[in-house]
């Protein structure tokens, strides 16, 4: 019997630093599979964020730039404007994209920059040790909201996919999740669609992935999946919020 499952060429053969139960590994693999399937590894440039995925370039086998916190979309804009033939993606967490980098992502999407963003939403700052993010759920305890997020003080979580979908510029905006194999297959389809829109020079594309952070949530991986399904998915609905065809 032949080999039926192998590591994507775009993924390096190495051990990652991610915690047990973290969904970054799944998201990385999906991006790598899509890059292999589209045959674009030799002309792809990734832009790494600040956060847990800052070292992601160690796990991929193509060109990478490492951004400052929140600035990945500005760097991707710079690359894509001077080298439109390259395939460019940013990979950003919720603190990075929805807090410090809100301006950069909104304006990149609004200009219709032809790159792809993979947005990991796990409702918490990971790398810095579990502080409150703009996406933290009401009542969710973090190291900077020890009594639970109080919407009266800090507002409700930002729904980035919905926010970006209000822009009039054509774009592809979707939200999927990595909580089980069925969802993971849907997430991969969305990621492939996002890269394909870029390859066709159609529009800006972003796939938000509802993810888990068992370490900073203080849960086992199984509890984290259950918590995300019960608490995050009702507030962060899955699906396509915008396609260039409908814009």
């Amino acid at each position, binding site marked *: 019997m032949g080999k039926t499952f192998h590591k994507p060429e775009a993924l390096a053969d190495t051990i990652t630093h991610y915690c047990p139960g973290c969904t970054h590994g799944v998201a990385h693999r999906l991006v790598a599979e899509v890059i292999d399937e589209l045959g674009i*590894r*030799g*002309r*792809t*440039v990734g*832009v*790494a964020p600040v956060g847990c995925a*800052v*070292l992601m*370039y160690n796990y991929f*086998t*193509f*060109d*990478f*730039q*490492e*951004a*400052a916190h929140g*600035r990945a979309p*500005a*760097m*991707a*804009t*710079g*690359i894509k*404007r*001077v*080298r439109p*033939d*390259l395939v460019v993606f940013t990979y950003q967490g919720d603190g990075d994209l929805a807090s410090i980098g809100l*301006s*950069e992502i909104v*304006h990149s999407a609004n200009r219709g920059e032809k790159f792809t963003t993979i947005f990991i939403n796990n409702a918490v700052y990971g790398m810095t040790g579990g502080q409150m993010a703009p996406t933290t759920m009401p009542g969710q305890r973090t190291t900077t909201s020890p009594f639970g997020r109080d919407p009266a003080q800090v507002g409700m979580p930002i729904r980035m996919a919905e926010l970006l979908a209000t822009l009039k510029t054509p774009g592809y905006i979707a939200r999927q999740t990595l909580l089980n194999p069925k969802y993971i297959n849907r997430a991969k389809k969305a990621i492939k669609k996002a890269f394909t829109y870029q390859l066709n020079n159609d529009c800006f594309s972003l796939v938000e992935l509802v993810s888990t952070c068992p370490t900073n949530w203080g849960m086992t991986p199984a509890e984290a999946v259950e918590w995300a399904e019960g608490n995050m998915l009702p507030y962060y609905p899955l699906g396509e919020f915008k396609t260039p065809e409908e814009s």
Partner: protein
Amino acid sequence: MSKVLMKGNEAIGEAAIRAGGLNYFAYPITPQSEVAEYLSKRMPEVGGVFLQGESEVAVSYMIFGAAACGKRVFTTSSSPGISLMSEGISYIAAAECPSVFVNIMRGGPGLGGILPSQADYLQATKGGGHGDYKLLVMAPASVQEAVEMVMRAFPLAEKYRNPVMVLGDGLIGQMMEPVEFPEHLKSEPSNKDTWATNGMDTRKSKTRNLVKTLYLDPVELNAQNLKLKAKYERMEREEILYEPYHLEGDYKVLIVSYGTMSRVCRTAIDHLEGEGLAVGMIRPQHLFPFPAKAVYEAAGRDSCRAVLSVEMSMGQMVEDIERSVKGKRSVHWYGKCGGEVPTPEEVMDAVKKLAD
């Protein structure tokens, strides 16, 4: 090519194009917005890239992303805008990406004012953002020199794989002078395949390149800082540039002044000579590296009693002069900032006080 009459800001934009700087990202700010206005028309004509970013912060990272692809890229701004860009400049210096930043200085601190100033000397020459890094800093004293410096800035940025700053006071951007443009340069850095993220397929090696600034291992980070330090020391050996003025005679006072201010000083020196008082001047054309040895030697002349820094700032260059003179002569300051340019008469009065 014959001479044309051009406003400094427009001449700076045209000079960058002729240097192959065909990729421009910027955010409007007085007194340099004419560069962006000029290039928004010119870049499409020459097949270049023009993009107005959403903020100076974003612009500095557009520069970073494009520079990391090995393209000739630049921006222009003014003082408060440069403060916002300083975050990105620190990353670009850390990642060793060639790029050119033009600062047409206005008065500060804070919003300050929109009139000419030289109050960003320390920010420009000592780093400006966080961490141990330096910029090569060029200071033009005329529109013609601004053109020549902008054109030299690109190859110098590539030689050192470091950002270069052209630091002009607001007058350099706003005044019109006759200029002649040198020959075009070729438009691509030559050594980029060893470091640029320009797509693996485009390179012979077919190995991937990585542009990064994070070194979690303290030994590695120290080694990277030593590498950068060696580069700045090489600049100090190879890139000293200054113009001497009336340094032949037995001058009583040595002026150190740069940019438009140095032209006022020239007039003052000529008048003082007519009155029988000999004054010499060193005009640093590069502010980093600073011409420390030249200032030391000129200050050490037997006839020289004192050294005077004349600046449109509150004396930011004085500490560079003091460390150069090494206590041999007293170092003084005369200047104004906020947009008032000292007159030749005011400079003459300041010099006379030291000569008595």
